[in-house]
């Protein structure tokens, strides 16, 4: 009896460990260069699975892009696999589980920049899209700052579809008039205005859960460091423990003093609601807030709500971009290439961005299709210095962002700038972002 039991157990454990080593299937790519995308003149057909976490309000934008795509490539069966929830963490769980099992979709949504590079490119999972960029002439049509931020020395890894600006400050003009305050242009002006507002019982700055706090931090960092030093921080030339960076934390602490105490329980829309409802004066948020205020709350840009650069960031554009790439080993590369062509095309971008409230990456877009806010944002994009966002994966990889959330929350509790700077240095080192 015990013998039978023992044999069965051993057999099962052996089988279990076989599964443990994972089903490794060799991905065979017979054509030219395994690492670069292959362009040919075949008509794309068959299944195309695109993977994203856009849903709810962003759904219509993606649908419009899909319609545009289907117009050009009618023989492709496009499968729109969306996984929503948790600002993408569920989508990442599904995607990564599949990728670890060598079952990639043809294309997936990813934030352009270090999020893509640190996770997928460094792991040698993506096809280099330089041939495609050359073929489509994108090297001349996308801004060079952007191409620099989303590529590496070894290639370009994704096609950006949209651009959002994260250093925007939102307010209601009529409310500011009522309270007698002017829009602050620098951090010091902001702190002065905040004092006045607090005395009147208005929350100077509304904030939501953690990732919005990270966004606020990056706005403060850009303001405190300026464009040049901000970039140096991310390419490792400026130390995290440098006094200038400690000053960022100190300013951020001051900023936090002027935010609502229940930030952790609010979604970003609820924070925006506070501004619209008059309980708060300002809100720093990416420009999807414009979409929310225009479409859901039906406010008119300029008169119903107003915007400005976050204090101290005049002349700079903190950008983030959703993009699509092609993972190695996908089963229908031709269809994936077709999808990327649509993503980077004028008609595709002009179909997608007006509905999403973002601006196109192409410098030759038809701006008449866009709202008043988007026009002003596109203007900034063309003329201002472009830097990358932290909260949305342009300047930092996923490991760093994950640990940074913890550092920020701890700072929230302790308000110890030096210790936060030290902790940031440690996580930067452990995530290969600094030495």
């Amino acid at each position, binding site marked *: 009896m015990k013998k039978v039991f023992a044999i069965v157990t051993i057999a099962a454990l052996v089988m279990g460990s076989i599964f443990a080593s994972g089903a490794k299937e060799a991905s065979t790519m017979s054509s030219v260069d395994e690492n670069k995308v292959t362009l040919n003149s075949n008509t794309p057909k068959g299944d195309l699975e695109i993977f994203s976490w856009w849903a709810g309000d962003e759904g219509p934008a993606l649908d419009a892009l899909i319609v545009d795509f289907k117009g050009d490539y009618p023989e492709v069966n496009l499968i729109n696999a969306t996984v929503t929830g948790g600002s993408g963490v*569920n989508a990442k769980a599904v995607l990564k589980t599949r990728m*670890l099992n060598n079952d990639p979709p043809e294309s997936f949504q990813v934030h352009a920049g270090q999020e893509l590079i640190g996770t997928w490119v460094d792991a040698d999972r993506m096809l280099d899209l330089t041939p495609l960029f050359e073929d489509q002439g994108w090297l001349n049509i996308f801004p060079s700052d952007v191409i620099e931020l989303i590529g590496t020395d070894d290639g370009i890894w994704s096609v950006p579809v949209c651009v959002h600006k994260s250093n925007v400050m939102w307010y209601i003009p009529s409310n500011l008039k009522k309270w007698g305050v002017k829009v602050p242009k620098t951090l010091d002006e902001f702190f002065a205005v905040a004092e006045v507002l607090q005395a009147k019982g208005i929350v100077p700055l509304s904030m939501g859960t953690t990732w919005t706090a990270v966004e606020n931090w990056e706005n403060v960092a850009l303001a405190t460091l300026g464009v040049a030093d901000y970039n140096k921080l991310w390419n490792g030339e400026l130390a995290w423990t440098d006094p200038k960076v400690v000053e960022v934390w100190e300013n951020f602490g001051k900023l936090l003093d002027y935010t609502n105490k229940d930030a952790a329980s609010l979604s970003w829309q609820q924070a925006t609601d506070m501004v619209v409802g008059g309980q708060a004066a300002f809100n720093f948020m990416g420009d999807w807030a414009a979409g929310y205020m225009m479409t859901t709350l039906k406010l008119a840009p300029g008169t119903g709500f107003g915007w400005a650069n976050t204090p101290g960031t005049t002349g700079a554009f903190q950008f983030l971009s959703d993009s699509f790439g092609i993972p190695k080993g996908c089963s229908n590369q031709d269809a994936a290439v077709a999808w990327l062509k649509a993503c980077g095309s004028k008609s595709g971008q002009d179909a997608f961005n007006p509905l999403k409230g973002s601006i196109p990456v192409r410098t030759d877009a038809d701006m008449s299709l866009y709202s008043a806010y988007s026009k002003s944002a596109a203007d900034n994009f063309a003329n201002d210095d472009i830097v990358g966002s932290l909260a949305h994966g342009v300047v930092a990889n996923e490991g760093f962002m994950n640990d940074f959330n913890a550092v920020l929350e701890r700072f929230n509790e302790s308000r110890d700038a030096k210790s936060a700077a030290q902790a940031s240095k440690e996580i930067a080192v452990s995530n290969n972002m600094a030495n």
Partner: protein
Amino acid sequence: MKTSLQKKRTKKIIYYVVIILISITFLIPIYMAFITSLKGRAEINLATAWKLPKKITFVGYTNAITTLGPYLKNSIILTVSATVISSFLGAINGYIFSKNKFKGSELIFTLMLFGMFIPYQIILIPLFTALRTLHFTGLKGLILAHVVYGIPIVTMLFRNFYDQIPNSILESGRIDGANYFTVFTMLILPLSIPSFVVVGIWQFTQIWNEFLWAICLTSQETNPITVGLSQLSGGQAVAWNDSMAGAIISAIPVLCIYIFLGKYFIQGLLSGSVKG
């Protein structure tokens, strides 16, 4: 000085007040979900959360049904199959651990029970790998996953239940000529109905409401309803009326089971599944 009758009366009043207050507390969340589901997008605001909708609209429900509709069939297939298979597996396992012990069976049971405590997020990756290797993808794979991970708990519930059945029933059955198998099918099974209800309700609830494996192990056509629910709650700007309407709709099948079978649930627990 109150008479004994008056004392009894006040006790009764206090009793009813207490129980009604507690009931109201229990109903607050569903009240909140309900009124939110009937509001239009623009009306949903923290400040007015408690208020009844100014204008009742069913747009939340229509959106929810459009999104959830295609997934309903998948959820039903998934949950019913997994629950049925799981319950029968539990019944025969429980029968053996309770009435047909052998050397080492206690150890095996204890080891099975430990399996209940594995955190389900961490096995996502090896589970996916295993199912893929076995070519058990889609709903098939999800059903298998739920059955396997339900084994410990359903076995425990059935074992507890069968412990309450006196061995004399089996002995007299044997004397009357029943063999190993017919004792189970003819004698034990008919007595197990209450336990099937308890186990069935438990598994149905857990499987119907499970999200993470559902989304990882199935693809678009085979997604169950929990995936649709997360789509209603996802995105940058959540449409809370859709989300609450979706939550209510997806809870209806399980709620119906509780309302109609609730009596049997208690009866089942009464007949002994409860005792350790």
